[in-house]
């Protein structure tokens, strides 16, 4: 009973330490939300409004019809008409346009023959992803183009071999769903890491840690007191931002709430363990902050949050299995987009449990050995 009262007193003290100062109070609630909204809009791989220029050496009704198909596409935005090939280098280099579509003078003549006209497209490869996606858009416009049909309608008898596609779980292929559904885990991780990694280090730097040690608390109790605010703020931020994903960004929530809650809880536990481990090792706040970055950066990069784990080399993919964020990101996407329930997230939940089962005792052991 006494132990419980002592822990409660410590928890209250830790909450006060965060919430008493108005600046630090704002920091745990305000910025995560601002970040969520700004990055929810900014973090997109969708390619829209591709600026392009045209060099039409054919200047025929046929070439104009082909170019009109591109102009009418919502993905492209015509910026300039060029007069000669010598202008191409300049408009691409100066980033005035992302693409130049170059229609040769034999366009109309070769149309409809067995040797179809070749349209040269030059793309700015400085952002290779935008270049690939934009070239893909053009490829589909070219595949649908029929020389004799009316604008956009197409000729029902013209020969063509089309790839007819359908996408499951995300019919419009919006990369915002992909990012935003997992953004709550990423931001919760940053908040929790900063809170916990600085908590012990701050007391050490201020010298109040010695006071805490001579007070009648056990090491384990001090540690629980340090862990609770991190857990509470982490889950609070995670839930708040997941709600914002649904109501602000319109991401569908197809799975079970319970599954999401379980994932967030175990994930935050695992992160609190890492944060306290860093904190126990740090004697100054600078070390705590830098230490948490040494964890946050690789964890973010190797999580599949922004770029797919599947594109990594095999050995690195194996390494990502030790990354709690990877499992949380995957589980959240399953819950949001694929409609996973508690049993379907189990393959991600048990690795998180294992990771938490390692980081929390490790933090406790490190804490004891550094204070004992």
């Amino acid at each position, binding site marked *: 009973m006494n132990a419980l009262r002592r822990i409660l007193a410590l928890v209250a003290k830790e909450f006060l330490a965060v919430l008493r*100062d108005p600046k630090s109070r704002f*920091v745990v609630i305000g*910025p995560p939300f601002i970040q969520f909204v*700004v990055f929810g*809009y*900014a*973090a997109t*791989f969708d390619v*829209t*409004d591709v600026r392009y220029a045209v060099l039409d050496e054919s200047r025929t009704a046929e070439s104009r019809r082909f170019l009109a198909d591109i102009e009418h596409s919502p993905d492209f935005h015509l910026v300039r008409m060029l007069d000669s090939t010598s202008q191409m280098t300049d408009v*691409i280099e*100066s980033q005035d346009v992302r693409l130049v579509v170059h229609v040769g003078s034999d366009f109309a003549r070769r*149309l409809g023959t067995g040797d*179809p006209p*070749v*349209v*040269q497209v030059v*793309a700015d*490869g*400085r*952002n*290779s*992803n*935008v270049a*690939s*996606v934009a*070239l*893909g858009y*053009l*490829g589909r416009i*070219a595949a649908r*183009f029929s020389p004799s049909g009316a604008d956009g309608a197409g000729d029902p008898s013209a*020969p*063509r071999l089309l*790839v*007819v*596609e*359908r*996408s499951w*779980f*995300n019919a419009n*292929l919006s*990369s915002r769903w*992909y990012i935003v559904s997992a953004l709550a885990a990423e931001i919760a991780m*940053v908040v929790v890491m*900063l809170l916990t990694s*600085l908590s012990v280090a*701050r007391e050490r*730097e201020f010298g109040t840690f010695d006071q805490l040690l001579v007070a009648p608390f056990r090491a384990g109790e001090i540690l629980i007191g340090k862990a609770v605010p991190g857990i509470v703020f982490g889950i609070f931020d995670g839930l708040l931002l997941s709600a914002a994903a649904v109501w602000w960004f319109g991401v569908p929530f197809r799975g079970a709430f319970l599954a999401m809650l379980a994932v967030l809880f175990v994930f935050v536990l695992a992160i609190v363990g890492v944060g306290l481990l860093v904190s126990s090792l740090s004697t*100054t706040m*600078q070390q705590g902050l*830098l*230490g948490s970055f040494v964890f946050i*950066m*690789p964890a973010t*990069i*190797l999580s599949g949050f922004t*770029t797919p784990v599947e594109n990594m080399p095999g050995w690195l993919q194996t390494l990502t299995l030790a990354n709690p964020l990877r499992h949380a990101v995957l589980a959240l*996407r399953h819950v949001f*987009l694929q409609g996973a329930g508690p049993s379907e997230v189990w393959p991600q939940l048990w690795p998180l449990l294992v990771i938490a089962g390692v980081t929390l005792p490790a933090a406790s052991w490190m804490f004891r050995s550094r204070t004992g």
Partner: protein
Amino acid sequence: MSSPRARSLLRLRGLLRKELLQVRRDPSSILLAVVMPVVLLFLFGYGVSLDPLEVPLAVVADDSSAPARDLLARFASTPYFDVVTAATMDEASALLEGGAVDGIVRVRGDFERELLRDGRADVQLVLNGIDANRASLIRNYVTQAVAGWTTARRARGEPAAGPAVVLEPRTWFNPVNESRAYLVPGLIALIMTLTGTLLTALVIAREWERGTMEAILATPLRARELLIGKTLPYLGLGLLGLAISILGGVWLFDVPLRGSLFLLVLCSSLFLLAALGLGLAFSAGLRVQFVAAQVSVIAGFLPAFFLSGLLFDLGSVPAPIRFISHIVPARYFVDISHTLFLAGDVWSVVLPDALALAVAATVFFALARRNVGERLESP
């Protein structure tokens, strides 16, 4: 009596000595400046790629005719796909739903008849759309494979249902379209933001919090000298990180450096000054390490990642976000870095961006100067 200038230099030397001792005593700042660039370079170079390779793909052939088999064999022969043959669409759907494959290509029963009789046929493609960008790149691969098959048939004189127009795409500056070539140059912005903003965010707040600011106040040190003394050691550490990033990028990951190295170092120093100025402005203004740390992450580091064009293209974000991105110095530097590494010395890009960086550095240092100055020089 020595001149005021000589005395100022003397005071600066003393402060610099103290800062360098502090850097040396706490190895975590050297860790950040040297070890982090190496770790990040390694992780970015190997771990961050937008290029799908060996995509697991299920193929379903309802038509066992020669053209259908020939088309599907094309998927197996490219390095982009790792093909699994499924007997039925149901079987393939189960594979897609379980995450075993990322897409299904299906050729329906009347494929040959349609192709030969009407010259119009469809190939069905089903994608897992959760990772939308990956899905649209996979779609491009499939479309290219089908177009390649048509061209090959035409060349062999076989009947083909070809498109009326053939595209010949060429990607300048990055002919093989490797995402690494644009991610590694952008990474320099991130590394220098870490060293610049994160490290300096603590250095003045620390003095306030520990009470040593009082001691500095009591010395004849001027605010300007304090800022210079707090800047120079970290400028050095930042340039060390820059050297590591450039060497690693060029030698380890074969990113070309087509522009001039001198220009790159010059622009990087400008950016580093802007980052340092921002960190010092936070540090002097907020005076609490915990808060300065949080704010430097939120207003310094995260925008450098999300609003800089480093990974996410700014041309496609909503207009208000693009507007906000104009106050993020990293945005201009990422642009410079992409251009200098991949395209060369394009003055129409580098000059305006470098000017923006110079403005940002001036504004941030003026802000830091004001935040320090108020108290240092008041009676």
